[in-house]
């Protein structure tokens, strides 16, 4: 007990002294201010990006609402005999309402933590306009973005944490022990009843507190203040998990710095080794893993998809030729554009066009499923082998917590696919049976509701990654403790 008390006293003494020295020699100020500037800039970027997305989503939904009001209004006026519709924009015609005129939007809302990582949100769309036409017509449009910008990547919080935080940690810890030895103060220290391991631990604690503490606290505070969605209980849990993940990631690099110091080389050699590890773990490993995963589970050919689509389309055109060669009758008989006794004449050409699209969808779905399976396979490989680099674990983890990882977008696409099927199931019988659309139908038409990934799943994923990093960190810590026994003091 007395020993423990004594150790605690010594720990505090070293801790306070280290803090004083680091503050006096300005390194800590420099690193802290740089970190703060980077964090603020990155958070600003993330928040701006999220806001822009939210703005687009609200415009989309407003457009949908406005269009519905217009459609309803026109339909009511038609029923009252006060208006005549256009043949290709007829609110009573299921062929018109089911396609562009009455299309519904499926929107993916941003999560509370979205500003943390841009992830894939600039590549995949977060809204789709769903019509009864084939999925191929709307699922593959993406947001407009300059490909150069996609290539450059974003300066978001995840970039700062995964790429830059380790470097800032190196700046304050690369000469953790080697400086003391090179300065000559190590002999003075170790001639006192101070264990080397306690000394190193206290030095690490100061740096962890200052740099990692700042790096995890500032984003949490900023998000809590600026983004009210994060204050809700489940989002708060995710925010804390993010801080945990980020904190342990930082501790990994600190442990690495300690381990390299424990080898007993010079400060310059330590710096080179640390930079080398960073290049390998943060720059090269993700790129290599991407390559390997792409080779093991390559994407099916999109060229092949295009070819198949065309062949299926040709088949369809042949199969429905009769329907498609039927002429429009509205030029001779304009009254057929109005519904009569709940029925309306859906032009055979439009029926043919719909059936063609439906058949394309049915035939092409297995091919598209192959793409989805392949991507899921790649994703699984990345999760399994991500441990080769803590940067991969942290990056993927943060993107997932932000709701901007590939997986959530894949889920969105799946749900939109299901909604698309629902939409078709509503309109196909009406088109084939020439049933007219009535005002009451507008409330009964399928609406898209997004089913969010269960929070428990997100939590356990993040928790698992944090554990992975923690194990690595502890292993490094064990190595350091062991190696310090042979540390060359002189």
């Amino acid at each position: 007990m007395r020993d423990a008390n004594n150790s605690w006293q010594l720990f505090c003494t070293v801790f306070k002294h280290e803090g004083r020295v680091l503050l006096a020699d300005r390194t800590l100020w420099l690193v802290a201010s740089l970190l703060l500037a980077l964090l603020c800039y990155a958070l600003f970027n993330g928040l701006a990006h999220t806001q822009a997305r939210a703005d687009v989503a609200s415009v989309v939904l407003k457009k949908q609402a406005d269009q519905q009001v217009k459609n309803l209004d026109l339909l009511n006026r038609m029923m009252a005999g006060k208006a005549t519709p256009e043949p290709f924009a007829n609110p009573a015609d299921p062929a018109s309402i089911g396609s562009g005129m009455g299309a519904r939007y499926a929107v993916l809302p941003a999560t509370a933590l979205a500003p943390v990582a841009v992830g894939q949100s600039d590549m995949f769309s977060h809204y789709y306009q769903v019509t009864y036409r084939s999925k191929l017509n709307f699922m593959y449009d993406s947001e407009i973005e300059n490909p150069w910008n996609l290539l450059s990547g974003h300066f978001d919080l995840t970039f700062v944490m995964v790429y830059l935080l380790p470097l800032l940690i190196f700046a304050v810890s690369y000469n953790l022990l080697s400086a003391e030895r090179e300065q000559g103060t190590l002999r003075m220290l170790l001639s006192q009843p101070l264990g080397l391991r306690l000394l190193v631990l206290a030095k690490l604690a100061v740096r962890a507190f200052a740099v990692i503490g700042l790096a995890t606290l500032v984003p949490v505070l900023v998000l809590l203040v600026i983004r009210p969605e994060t204050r809700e209980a489940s989002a708060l849990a995710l925010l804390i998990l993010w801080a945990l993940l980020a904190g342990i990631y930082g501790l990994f690099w600190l442990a690495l710095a300690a381990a390299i110091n424990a080898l007993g080389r010079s400060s310059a050699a330590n710096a080179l080794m640390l930079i080398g590890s960073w290049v390998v773990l943060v720059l090269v490993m993700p790129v290599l893993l991407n390559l390997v995963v792409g080779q093991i589970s390559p994407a099916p050919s999109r060229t092949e998809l295009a070819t198949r689509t065309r062949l299926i389309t040709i088949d369809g055109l042949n199969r429905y030729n009769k329907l498609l060669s039927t002429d429009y009758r509205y030029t001779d008989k304009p009254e057929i554009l109005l519904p009569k006794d709940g029925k309306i004449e859906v032009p055979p050409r439009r029926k043919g066009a719909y059936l063609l699209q439906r058949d394309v969808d049915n035939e092409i779905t297995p091919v598209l499923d192959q793409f989805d399976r392949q991507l899921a396979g790649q994703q699984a490989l990345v999760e399994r082998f991500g441990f080769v680099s803590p940067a991969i674990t942290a990056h993927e983890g943060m993107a997932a917590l932000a709701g901007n990882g590939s997986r959530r977008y894949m889920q969105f696409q799946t749900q939109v696919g299901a909604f698309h099927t629902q939409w078709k199931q509503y309109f196909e019988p009406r088109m084939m049976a020439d049933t007219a659309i009535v005002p009451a139908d507008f409330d009964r038409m399928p609406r898209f509701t997004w089913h969010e990934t269960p929070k428990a799943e997100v939590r356990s994923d993040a928790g698992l990654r944090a554990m992975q990093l923690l194990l690595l960190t502890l292993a490094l810590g064990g190595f350091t403790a062991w190696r310090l026994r042979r540390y060359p003091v002189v």
Partner: protein
Amino acid sequence: MLSAQNVTKTFGETQALNAVSLTVMPGDIYCLLGANGAGKTTLINVFLNFLQPTTGTAQVNGRDVTAEPLQTKRDLAYIPEQVMLYGVLSGLENLDYFAALATGQKQPGVTLLRLLADVGLDETAAMRRVATYSKGMRQKVGIAIAMAKEAKALLLDEPTSGLDPSAANEFSQLLKKASQNGVAVLTTTHDLFHAKQTATRIGIMKRGQLVAELSSADITHSDLEALYLQHMRA
């Protein structure tokens, strides 16, 4: 009490220490003489557990330094040839730190200032950053640290090298006072004159071996010099 029993240290092919045995009793000032590379600093490092002996044991107050490193360091004070401190902090802050580590608790400022005054550093000097100190001033802080510890054994590596004669004399007086208080002092030096002046026992090392051991009172200055050179030439 300091005692080395048959201490041998080999680095690969070189034998830095070869079966060295010596004892420093409380109140003794034992001076180790020898050329560069004779093994004097290596022996000090063994006592400090900075190097582990290949065979043999080193003991402080009956405790083996490799078996009980922390406890033995409590009983030991060390002043290296170059006292290196934290340049960005003042002499007082450095003393505060090392004294806290040495004794396990923070010493009051008054005590620290008194210690510094005792070694000849006034308050103004004590408040200046160590980066501005001369070698002698740094050594004074080193002495203050050792005194704050109130240890029963003192290890000194070339304490008078680079000091002017009056400073060296001051230093010898301090050592004598310490030995009067029952401290066992082991010091290494090139300086034959001060060895004879200050030491109670003298040992001569050559190539890792203790080739001669004698009482300082039993020999004159010139005889000591002759003996020393005889061993160096042999």
